């Protein structure tokens, strides 16, 4: 029963990580590609980490909470790096897909 749960979590994690990578490969412009990896690192890695926490908790008998830290650091760093890359790309005017919609309200 436990094994099935763990297997399911790992497969889910792997699936979302794969989707993130596919996104990185096939999306047409820089800003859209940025969505791929930030996504993979949330649910994809999240599911694998939950699996890890459950496995080690049951295997060793001690509650394993390292994984919470990994999640925490990842959730802090992933958006910051995405933000910096997007900001840098805007600054050097990386080409956007032509149909990208611009909705600026009262901004410079």
């Amino acid at each position, binding site marked *: 029963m436990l094994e099935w749960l763990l297997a399911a979590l790992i497969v889910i994690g792997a699936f*979302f990580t794969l989707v993130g990578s596919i996104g990185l490969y096939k999306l047409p412009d820089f800003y859209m590609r940025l969505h791929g990896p930030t996504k993979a690192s949330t*649910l994809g890695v999240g599911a694998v980490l939950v699996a890890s926490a459950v496995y080690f908790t049951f295997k060793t008998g001690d509650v394993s909470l390292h994984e919470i830290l990994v999640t925490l650091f990842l959730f802090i760093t992933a958006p910051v790096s995405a933000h910096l890359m997007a900001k840098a790309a805007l600054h050097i005017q990386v080409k956007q897909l032509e149909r990208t919609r611009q909705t600026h309200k009262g901004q*410079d």
Partner: protein
Amino acid sequence: MMRRLLPHPVLSVFLWLIWLLLNNTMAAGHVVLGAVLAVFIPWLSSAFWPEQVCIKKPLVLLRYILVVLWSIIVANINVARLILGRSDKLQPGFISLELRLQSPVGISMLSNTISLTPGTVSCDLSDDRRYLLIHALHIDDVEAIISDIQNRFEQPLLEIFES
């Protein structure tokens, strides 16, 4: 006295918890060592933290975290569908969100949340901190995305940090 000793109580508590988690133990020695570090690190680094972070409603923060986790799961599934579908049907775009939040911590929490929930990445903050530029992978309805962010994320953050 208390303020000089513990300039950032919230930071101290977090450091202490993180220390215990890193060591994966509740042994007395580590509890004490962690507490010492939790007092000294904020004290030494207080020059980098000019303002006090103050969580006014911890319960709202807890609910906010749960809402964010749930949104991440739902949005991940949506984005997976978008990525696996045909990419020439996607309508990407930039949205500028007018911020009601004013505290830097609140704004950075909001933009981190926006980047964490799939489908949107925060790209830039205007110099006067009034607009946040967001890139969305697929836009059906600009107003819907904006009001979604405002109701689900910005409103609780306003309550937590600025009420």
